[in-house]
């Protein structure tokens, strides 16, 4: 879902890219402030290791249909581990390294990619929170993680469709259905991997689930 600069076409695409830069940086500045006041214990090790894992995992594309592939984004996974704000910052590091070193996602388009993956990924935390408001059972929690990670991919893909539309002669009428079609399937992979990871961490070492603690504490986030 990483938008390359090659797909930023004409004035419309370029202005959208600039606006997304401004929106994303503003939201990240806010999440930086909230993150600073949220954590009372060091999250350094968890933050470093989970971010590194998400980078590695994003390199592994899994095949879907019609000669197409997808890979984990990992935003929801990070949100469950770290909470929404640190997850956004963590994903920002992953996306920066990809864009700077590997040309994976553009520089002009970076604000878009930040929004579609880092910010939407972090915000999926609130969807889990909403879904688990009534029931706290492990099974429903796992289902909520699945639904939220699938939704985070679909929402990211929807916004990406609008952002790249200027580069297509058919515009949004072409990009939206095609993006949603592929990402509905890629999202299933995201949901399956995220749920597997979260339930494993929950079983293996629940103490490190900082985001989960925030969820359970019902703190006003």
């Amino acid at each position, binding site marked *: *879902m*990483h*938008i*390359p*600069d*090659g*797909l930023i*076409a004409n004035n419309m695409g370029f202005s959208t890219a600039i606006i997304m830069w401004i929106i994303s940086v503003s939201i990240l500045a806010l999440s930086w402030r909230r*993150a*600073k006041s949220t*954590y009372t214990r*060091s*999250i*350094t*090790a*968890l*933050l*470093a*290791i*989970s*971010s*590194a*894992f*998400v*980078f*590695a995992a994003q*390199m*592994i*594309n*899994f095949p879907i249909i019609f*000669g*197409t*592939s*997808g*890979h984990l984004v990992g935003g929801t996974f990070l949100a469950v581990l770290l909470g929404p704000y*640190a997850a956004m*910052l*963590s994903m920002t*590091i*992953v996306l*920066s*390294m*990809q*864009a*700077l*070193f*590997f*040309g*994976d996602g553009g520089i002009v388009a970076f604000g878009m990619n930040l929004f579609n993956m880092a910010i939407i990924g972090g915000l999926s935390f609130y969807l889990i929170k909403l879904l688990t408001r009534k029931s706290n059972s492990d099974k429903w929690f796992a289902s909520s993680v699945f639904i939220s990670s699938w939704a985070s991919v679909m929402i990211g893909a929807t916004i*990406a469709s609008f952002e*790249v539309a200027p*580069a*297509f002669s058919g515009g949004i009428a*072409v*990009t939206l259905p*095609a*993006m949603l079609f*592929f*990402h509905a399937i*890629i999202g299933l992979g995201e949901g399956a991997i995220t749920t597997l990871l979260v339930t494993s961490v929950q079983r293996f070492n629940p103490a490190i689930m900082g985001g989960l603690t925030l969820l359970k504490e019902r703190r006003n986030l």
Partner: protein
Amino acid sequence: MKKYIAAMVLLIVFLVIFVPLASSNPDGLEKVAQNFGANEQETMWTGLITDYSIPFIHNSYVSTLLAGIFGTTMVLIFAFLLGKILVPKKQSGKTP
């Protein structure tokens, strides 16, 4: 320090196993761009290690693997620094 080295070792093992299994098919967005004839622009920046392959290493597995290890290490370092700045020591209770 120990846990970061342990994590890096595990992540390298992860990459060694999964890099050759990764699909090289275009991803969802690339496929849409190909299928519907996107009007692709010139790009000014394609990265130092474009498309996760180190130019002077010709074995594509080794090339991608090393690119992956490099990227993973960079993310680990920057996220570590972020964590250090985010929660200053005096707040952090016991140091890990």
